């Protein structure tokens, strides 16, 4: 099976088979990362560019190193020093990049729908590395990969996503991916941060953390941003932490072998305690490592390598 899409804009429209293909392809990629010589020639002669209109540590670096391990030429457009600062439109920026000959663009943008806009306006392949509050498909893929690696299956797992669901692209992409694989997904957070009609997405919404965590196999904790408090969505970070910070005692409610995920960067002591973040249930570091493997798989599938080249 080949990945037939020009772009990866979200998890919503992917079939279960397509997701499975990406996750399967990530397995040999992880082996490449573990090798002494971390380089395969698969994407030699291919060029990719990361265009990040929002700050990022792990996602951008992860895409870059994933491309490099596969021998693609990778360039990072530093938006803060680019012509964007001179008022260049997104469309012109994309066109400029395109005519330089890049095969693939990875874009992150603070506004929902911008990856769709980019994809419509270029012949380059486009990967959405997070668009506003819409989707962050590679984060969901690496979360699913990490859960799958630990649990062996996704089918029937109970997964709680905790925090600011309203503004979270990670939550949306995870909901789409996990529900396609038969997980029971719960979202929990203050009522002001639960989006309207969220249960139509096939999840159950909770306001009470203890109830939401009852018997769960996985807890995915979202980052809470200070500006949400400033926008009046909750009274204070202290009150938020009192109600929703994942602490050791909450884990007793969950399954014994519960996994704790966080997409990073973490606000320790706000949405997650250090004890939990560093504890035995935490998969947070594995997530980052798996992120490279999953992105290698995607780049490989989208820029046209064949699977045999990796196996050797």
């Amino acid at each position, binding site marked *: 099976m080949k990945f037939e899409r020009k772009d990866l804009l979200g998890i919503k429209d992917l079939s279960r088979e397509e997701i499975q293909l990406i996750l399967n392809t990530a397995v040999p990629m992880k082996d490449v990362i573990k090798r002494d010589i971390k380089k395969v020639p698969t994407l030699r002669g291919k060029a990719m560019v990361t265009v990040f209109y929002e700050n990022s540590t792990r996602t951008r670096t992860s895409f870059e190193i994933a491309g490099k391990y596969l021998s693609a030429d990778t360039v990072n457009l530093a938006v803060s020093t680019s012509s964007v600062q001179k008022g260049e439109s997104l469309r012109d920026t994309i066109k400029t990049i395109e005519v330089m000959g890049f095969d693939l663009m990875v874009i992150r943008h603070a*506004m*929902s*729908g911008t990856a769709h806009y980019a994809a419509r306006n270029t012949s380059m392949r486009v990967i959405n590395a997070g*668009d506003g*509050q819409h989707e962050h498909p590679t984060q969901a893929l690496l979360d699913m990969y990490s859960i799958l690696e630990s649990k062996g299956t996704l089918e029937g797992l109970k997964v709680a996503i905790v925090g600011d669901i309203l503004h979270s692209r990670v939550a*949306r992409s995870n909901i789409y991916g996990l529900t396609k694989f038969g997980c029971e997904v719960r979202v929990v957070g203050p009522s002001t941060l639960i989006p*309207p009609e969220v249960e139509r997405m096939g999840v159950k919404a909770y306001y009470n953390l203890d109830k939401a965590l009852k018997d769960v196999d996985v807890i995915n904790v979202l980052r809470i941003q200070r500006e949400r408090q400033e926008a009046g969505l909750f009274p204070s970070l202290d009150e938020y932490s009192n109600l929703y910070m994942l602490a050791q005692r909450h884990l007793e409610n969950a399954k014994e072998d519960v996994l704790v995920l966080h997409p990073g960067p973490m606000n320790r002591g706000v949405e997650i305690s250090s004890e939990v973040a560093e504890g035995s249930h935490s998969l947070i570091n594995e997530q980052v490592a798996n992120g490279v493997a999953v992105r290698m798989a995607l780049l490989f599938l989208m820029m046209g390598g064949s699977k045999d080249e990796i196996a050797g």
Partner: protein
Amino acid sequence: MRLLVKGGRVIDPFNDLDQVMDVLIEDGFISDIGVNIDAVGAEVIDASAKIVCPGFIDMHVHLREPGFEYKEDIVTGTQAAAVGGFTAVCCMPNTQPAADNTSVIRFIREKAEKAGVVKVYPIGTITKQQAGKELSEVADLLAAGCVAISDDGKPVSGASVMRNALEYTKMFGIPVLSHCEELDLARDGEMHEGYHSTIFGLKGIPAAAEELMVARDIRLAELTGGHIHICHISARGSIELVRQARSKGVSVTCEATPHHLTLSDEILADYDTDAKVNPPLRSLEHIEALIEALQDGTIDCIATDHAPHHREAKDCEFKLAAMGISGLETAVAVIMDGLVHRGLLDAYDMVRLFTCGPAEILGLDAGTLGIGKVADITIINPEAVRSVDPDKFYSKGKNTPFKGKVLKGWPDTTIVNGKIVAREGSIV
């Protein structure tokens, strides 16, 4: 000069008329309406299988001139209107400078008379510079030719200002056209708040942002005895408020747009900025309420809120894109295809909503086909099938979410002052 419109289904709701007849036009006026009129030597328009109506009136149009001629001007805007089947439009005052003084109103009227293709009735501002503070000189504006006042696009936030506007206009017998939006609640909103805003990750505008202001304005109309007209009504709750108020005898009217009647928020899945509009496209339950209100007469007229934009204002990130739809050239076809041909609205009622509906709200001597009346006539071909091609628009605004759609039922001929100004999508 004599022109005979022959054998069409003549619908004139103002006169309770719906019958196959001929209409004879002489020297710009209607001289006869009847079956098989014999008019030797007259130019004949074969209207068989077509609908012959009083000239359509669009009471909510942004012609953009003066100040924003790169978006639209009086020539292109009235051309678009003519091709779209309208013989008259009312233009909103959010120009640069705003139409808050007689020189702008006179400029619009003179330019429209000289170069416009259809009739233009200017609307003045409610407040000076649309700042929401001091009332405009309403009597002066009316003397210069305004037909109503509105701060469309910049809702009047202060209740006392709106109260005074309604109180003051009462003595002139004109409506205050209100863009109902509670700005604090709608702030930064990109689309209707609901399931689809959740899915698309776009900031929602709750229906309550409109309903709150509709409720306020209705209460103020009740308090003052003024006439409030709700622009581009879009929410179920607003409809209920209008219905209740009317049953109590409050002087309230309202308009709905073709896009709010036929498109739901779901079409934003591809983040098409041409479907970004204020008020936002709502969910199905709201659309159902609007259609019901069209059928039972709660909605008084259909108006386009024609809001042409320059390409750059739409060809960008969704959040940054301007709100608005270029509506003049698709309105009739959208209503014919989406409502009339689907059995949701009688052709008769459609004609009422485009003719005597708006004329009555504004007190215009138009919207009917009486003998001796000025010959402003719209002929519709209900069977014509065409696709929407914005590149062929006369409007400078190509921003339409209907692009590429194949629609059935188009304006065929537009007659203004007895002259054919547009035919089958082209200016004559």
